[in-house]
């Protein structure tokens, strides 16, 4: 009985997610204004997400009589304050939610899992590199940062993008050359000093880095970011991934620390498996179930964060449709329930599906305890 439930949940979850992705990809075709774009198929909803219907502005309810010519042009879910169709905004908003929720957390997970894994696995006392390599890599990183931050003219007016791109590429190549040449030189001359191994306390450094990232408030990072890059979907994705990776890294690190002391890992070590192989083939798959729950939570938080950012004014532009923006506009206008209920249902469904899939992956013991005795 209970197992069936989980499978039912998982199937429902996968269904919702696939509908979501499908709608997001097909959004421009599903809902666009027929006289503005030239797709060969007539749209399902004859309104784009920015099409303003002057005759139905000021939040028309889905149930009252609307000032439209035909049933095809009816606003099935009502309109918002400006006169934009809510259904069209929901469809195009799934695009935004997919990008902002999914992609940003995907990027954040890659970064976070990587750092958490190596921090916990290598700990403070395992990673050794030669002094020479340490010196040359530090120097080349400093050189790269100096070049990229101070010499490449990012913010200067009147410099075209090709010049910036060429300079960046040239400097990256220059830094790589420097790295290899310095390595080579250190191997040839005074090799004994430079070949000594040093212990790098990787765990401490990464933990301090993660702590510092957590210590910075989200709003400061968002404000700084939004003034460097004008707010848009891609800048929001970048921001959220830069902020979310530290939480995922902390979780991964805790999980891997717990798993590291289990028997099969020690067996793998004694068998002589290399570090990376142990990490990726043995630890990671066992850490993923617990991680998937926190990743699912992170995806949900990212989508909710977007609506809070719209409320604060740091979110997407007015011309980008998103569920969060609809809910934020619904706040002032609480009598227009359709502005909040439909995006709310959409957000709820997506969040619920992510979490039920994560539940399924996490391999909960579904047989229950109280039935056992």
């Amino acid at each position, binding site marked *: 009985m209970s197992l069936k439930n989980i499978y039912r949940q998982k199937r429902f979850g996968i269904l919702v997610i696939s509908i979501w992705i499908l709608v997001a990809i097909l959004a421009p075709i599903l809902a666009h204004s027929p006289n503005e774009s030239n797709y060969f198929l007539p749209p399902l909803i004859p309104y784009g997400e*920015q099409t*303003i219907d002057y005759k139905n502005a000021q939040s028309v309810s889905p149930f009252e009589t609307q000032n439209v010519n035909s049933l095809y042009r009816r606003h099935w879910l009502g309109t918002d304050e400006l006169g934009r169709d809510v259904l069209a905004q929901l469809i195009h908003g799934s695009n935004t939610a997919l990008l902002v929720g999914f992609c940003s957390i995907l990027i954040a997970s890659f970064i976070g899992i990587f750092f958490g894994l190596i921090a916990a696995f290598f700990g403070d006392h395992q990673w050794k590199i030669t002094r020479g390599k340490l010196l040359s890599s530090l120097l080349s990183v400093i050189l790269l940062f100096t070049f990229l931050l101070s010499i490449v003219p990012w913010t200067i007016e009147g410099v075209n993008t090709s010049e910036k791109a060429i300079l960046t590429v040239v400097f990256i190549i220059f830094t790589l050359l420097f790295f290899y040449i310095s390595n080579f030189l250190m191997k040839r001359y005074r090799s004994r000093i430079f070949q000594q191994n040093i212990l790098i306390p990787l765990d401490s450094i990464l933990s301090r880095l993660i702590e510092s990232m957590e210590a910075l408030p989200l709003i400061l990072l968002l404000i700084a970011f*939004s003034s460097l890059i*004008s707010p848009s979907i891609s800048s929001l994705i970048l921001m959220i991934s830069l902020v979310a990776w530290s939480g995922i890294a902390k979780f991964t690190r805790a999980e891997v620390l717990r798993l590291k002391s289990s028997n099969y890992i020690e067996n793998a070590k004694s068998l002589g498996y290399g570090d990376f192989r142990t990490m990726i083939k043995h630890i990671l798959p066992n850490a993923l179930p617990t991680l998937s729950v926190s990743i699912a939570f992170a995806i949900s938080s990212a989508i909710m964060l977007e609506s809070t950012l719209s409320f604060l*004014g740091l979110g997407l*532009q007015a011309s980008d449709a998103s569920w969060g923006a609809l809910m934020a*506009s619904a706040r*002032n206008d*609480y009598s227009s329930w359709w502005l909040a209920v439909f995006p709310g249902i959409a957000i709820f469904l997506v969040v619920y599906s992510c979490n039920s899939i994560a539940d399924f992956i996490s391999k909960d013991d579904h047989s229950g305890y109280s039935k056992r005795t």
Partner: protein
Amino acid sequence: MQSNQRSFTHLFRALLLMLIFINLIACIPESQDDKSNLLNKIIMREAADAKSLHPLTVRDAVGFKVALFMYQSLVNIDYESQSLVGVVAKGEPQIDSLPKQIYKLTYQLRPEAQFDNGRQIEAADILFSLKYYLAPFTFNRDNRDYYQFIDSVKINKNNSTAISFYTHQLNSRTKFISGDFFILPYESFDPNRILSNYSISDLKQLVKTDSLPNLLQLEQHTDSSIKNASIQDLKGSGPYSLLNWEKGKRIQLEKKSNWWASNLNEQSVYFQNKANQLQIEIIPDETTALSALKSGDIDVLQGLSPKNYEKLQSDSSRFLTYEMEKRGYQYIGFNMNHPILQEKELRKAIAYICPLKIIVDQVYYGKASISSVPYVSATTSNEDQYAHNLQKAKNLLESIDWKDVDNDGLLEKEINGELVELELEFLYNTSNDSRAAIGMILKQEAKKVGIKINVQSVEWSIYLERLRNGNTTLFYYGAQTAPLPPDFSSLFHSKSAFGGRNFAQYQSIQADSLIAIINKNISVDKRDKIVKAFYGLIQDELPYYFMLTPYELIATSKKVKGLRIYSDRPYYWASELYK
């Protein structure tokens, strides 16, 4: 079985606790509703706290509003007649022209004017107040700049109710601003009478107080009084005294029992004090404020958005609503340094694209008036010169060679050898829904003629910086103006272009010379003629497309009587209200 029972009992215990808790809360003592009726107290809502109530540093809107009830100045503008009315002074100053381009402004004080302690306000007090405003404190720089046009002050020893200011800069605004500083009692602000040792010219010449120990002491005393927000030091001659100031929560003012002007028969707002207590509650969110009005926690709600105003208007059994056109302007600005916007035909085309009537009806619910000039007066015409007309826009664009070369729906043109697409950015500040709506409407209409507009919002600090930096294309901005003679220099003069408030970077020698003439102290008729010519120039060159001014919308509970709504800040006078 036993375990199930136990869990149920635990659950029920928890639920019971929660119910008790809620009951405790729900039986709160009855609110201040009844109390405010008894006391004839008017409760108003403001969205932000006053930053300072000290006369030297009061700057923001809320602080100024409260300060107008606490302190008085020599003269002030009467909101109904738009002319000067004497508050502490009897009336307008008498302006005499002396040789060598020196002007003398003489004020006659009201003999009945007194401070709280019964002491009559004399010319010496006016002199002290002016010295206080000119004192060389580090935080006093703005006041010193503002009043630096006063060269010297003379008091007649035989006549303590007259005072004369001497200045060599006389322009159309001088008589308005020479008497608008607050008159302060030295007992509260300079008890040791340190400033009496210095003359006006001494104070104007000093840059800092470091070298003079007693001035430094006064500066420190004033600074700490500002920083501690100590209420007892803030005394003036106005109708109300400051009872209580809980920072971030509320400000309470109480009517003075024996105020000197209560027997005066003047009808000007500056002599009213009908309510016994005035209370300002600080509620940042408008929806919460609306709920507070409905539950009776506040009496007066101003600055409503049109949609909420309509909701309250329809509930006329409980609320009274007032609306009035504000004095100010809102415009779409064009950055004249932008390569695309340099031709005035393009700017006019964008003005023709903008559907003002639709914007007023939809975005402002009709609660805005179309005004095509920044300073409206009786003689200026108020019609929209560029009424919505897509065909005219298309003709204008064609006349300056914008054509759709590649048939993608977007116009292109060759500028400096490159094929440039007609793509513009519309900038506004975040969290402003009406400006976002205007941008979206403009975007949709522009698409119909082949212009692509990117609606972009940035946060307030970046918005200010980009406006001043000239890093804009199209931008939306608005401001309130004062009921003074018009001053076009900040908007249109070339000196305000780079880094000033001339955000359009408009530089025209003709405009500069017209502005110089308008600012002189000429008669009202002459000025109106020149202003008309100036407006003709502006509307042809169109550095800004002035669109509309929204209405001020106020709603009060039915118990509040006597509210009159005006076009200028503070839009209504709480001292006129009573229950």
